[in-house]
Structure formats: C-alpha cells, structure tokens
C-alpha cells in the first residue's frame, strides 16, 4: 500500500523479461521456502499490527483496498493452517468413493465372515490411519531433522510422491464421479452416499 500512497501503481506486463537463478536441489528448495513462508508471515503480522497507525488521508480507497487484502490474506492463511485436516477430509471422501464404486465388486462382501469383507469394511479407516501417521511423521521429522540432512530429503521425496499420487487420484475420481452423475442422472457418490 506504500505504492498507492506514493501515487505509484502496479501494472501487469506480459512481455516482461527477467533472468533468474533457480534452485536446483530439493534441500535448497526446502530452505528457500522456509525462509520465504516465515518471512512473509512475519511481514504480514507487522503490517496487520501497524495498519491503523498509517492511514492515508489523500487516497481513502487505498485503505479500503488494504483492509480487503488483509481480510483475504487472513482467510487464505486460515485455510493453509487447516490444510492437513481439509486434505484428510478430501482423502476420506475419495477413499469412501473408491470403496463404494470399485472395491465392492472386488471383495466378496456377501460373505460376512470372509477376509475380504473385513478388509472392505475397514478400508477407509486404514487409509485415514495411514494419512494420520504420515502427517505425524512429517511434523516429527521436520522438528528433528534439517533440510541439509540427506535422509530427510528421501523422506520428502517419499511423502511428496504419495501426496501427489493421492491428488491425481482424487481429481480423476471426482471427474469420473461427476460424469457418472450426469450420465445416470443420479447422486454423485463423492458428495452424497
């Protein structure tokens, strides 16, 4: 907002040219993002604290924009803060859909005492438990190891691959589910079971 107070403006330049020196290792990326995320969070807190001290008299709309931006950033910070729980919810819904739509045929649920039936009924719980273990592992490893540790990077590779596969699977399941819903004019399994 200092930009607006100094009567300058930001514009979008599609043909801008810049040379960058990108990071080439995952260790470097973890360190860089740690610095950027924490730095931007501290800067945001400072701006939010001292927002009311520096009010511009000339451009009242600058303050309105600032307040809107602060609200929006608080809102997205909240979502980022609760991202693991929200991802768990998405994971849970996806696994329930997979269970209902695809696994019901594979396992013999007609046999109530069979092994397939037990696996089928506890499939979602097992997956939720695995997610919880992964989240706990990420927090534990982040506290105890630094980004320069080689073992930590291997863990990061593993976790990011699993999370990435999960995201792609969720995307495909949602798309297939919506297509099924439109085709059969029926409820989507992902949303309402």
């Amino acid at each position, binding site marked *: 907002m200092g930009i607006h107070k100094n009567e300058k403006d930001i*514009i*979008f*330049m*599609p043909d801008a040219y810049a040379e960058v020196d990108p990071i080439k290792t995952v260790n*470097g990326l*973890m*360190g*860089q*993002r*740690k*610095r950027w*995320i*924490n730095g931007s969070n501290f800067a945001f807190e400072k701006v939010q604290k001292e927002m009311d001290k520096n009010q511009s008299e000339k451009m009242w709309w600058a303050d309105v924009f600032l307040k809107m931006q602060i609200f*929006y950033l608080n*809102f*997205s910070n909240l*979502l*980022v*803060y*609760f*991202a*693991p*729980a*929200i*991802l*768990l*919810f998405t994971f*849970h*819904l996806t696994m*329930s859909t997979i269970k209902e739509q695809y696994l019901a045929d594979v396992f013999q649920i007609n046999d109530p005492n069979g092994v397939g039936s037990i696996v089928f009924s506890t499939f979602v719980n097992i997956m*939720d438990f695995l997610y*919880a273990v992964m*989240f706990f592992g*990420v*927090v534990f490893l*982040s*506290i105890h190891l*630094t*980004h320069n540790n080689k073992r930590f990077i291997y863990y*990061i590779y593993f*976790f*990011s691959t699993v*999370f*990435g*596969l*999960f*995201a*792609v699977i969720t*995307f495909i399941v*949602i798309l297939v589910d*919506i297509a099924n*819903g*439109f085709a059969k004019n029926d*409820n*989507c399994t992902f*949303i*309402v*079971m």
Partner: protein
Amino acid sequence: MENALPGTGVFVDLLRYFILGSMLFYIFPLAIYGIFFMRIKYFWEIISGTFSFLFYSPAYLNLLNVYALCRIDDISWGTKGLDAEVGGKNANLKDTWKIVKMIDVAKFFLWNVVLGTLFIVFDSYLIIKFFVTLILLMLFTFIQVIKIIIGMCYIIKYKCITAKKNKADRETPLAHIKDPNGENPNDG
C-alpha cells in the same frame, strides 16, 4: 441411502455444478488472455501444466508449510558457516524461541487433529457431511473467483493503458524521443 436428505436432487446438482464451475472458471482469464494477446499456445501449456500443479500442490501445502512452521526459530539465511558466529549471548534467546516454536507446533498439530477427527465423525451424518462439503467448496471457489477476477482486472487494465499509449503514439509518432537539437521531429 437414497432419499435420505429431503430435496437432495437440487442440492446435489448445485454441488455438481459448483465443482465443475470452479474448474471451468479458469477458462475466462485464459480466453481473455488469448483474445487480447493472440497467444493461443498458452492454452495447451496451462492444460498440460495442470497435472504437475495437481501433483505438487498437496506436497506444497502439507510438507513445505509444516516444515516452515517447525523451523520458525531458525533465522539463518541457509548459507553454511557464514552465520555461525551468532551464539553465546543469544543462547538464552534461542531457547526461548524454541519453546515458543514448540507451543506453536503443538497448537497447529492439535487443531488439525481435532478438526480432522470432527470431519471423519461428521462423515457418518449425511446432512452434516453435505453441508461441510458445500461450505468447503464454497470457500475454495470464493478464493479462486477472487484471484481470477483480480487477475482479469489487471489484464484489462494493462490492455487499456497500452492501447492509450499506442493511440498517443499514432497521433504524434516518436514524440517520446528527445531530439538533441531541441527540434520536434514531427515538424520536419
């Protein structure tokens, strides 16, 4: 569990269109970009980039943010050995920061565990699950729509400014170039 929620059909249709709309809403800025700047090749770049974006976004949200939170007391620049002199006097301060960090991480962990447990418990109740899904979808769509609208505003603003400049240039070509002799090149 058919017809468990009265009037489900309408709401489920709403949710279905919500998901599709939040995906298809990205076409608007792309279309504006393509029409204004005549660069259609970006369509393919963005569509093919969607999969890599999908692949790394949960890792970004879960791993990098958690790592940043767990290293909030680490103010080093990442350069090896250059900032190793700090210590001695600041050792007490470091311990204090470590305790503050641990409290923050514990809070983060507990809040997420509580919310995740609530989500899973609510999953058994159809109506609550439905509304939780609706609210989460609305939050995400709200963020996307705000981002996209502001981005489109910037594109249109840039186009207006450059169009104005081009018009001015057309009326008085080379007006921005200063003549060393002090004469206006348009006169001659």
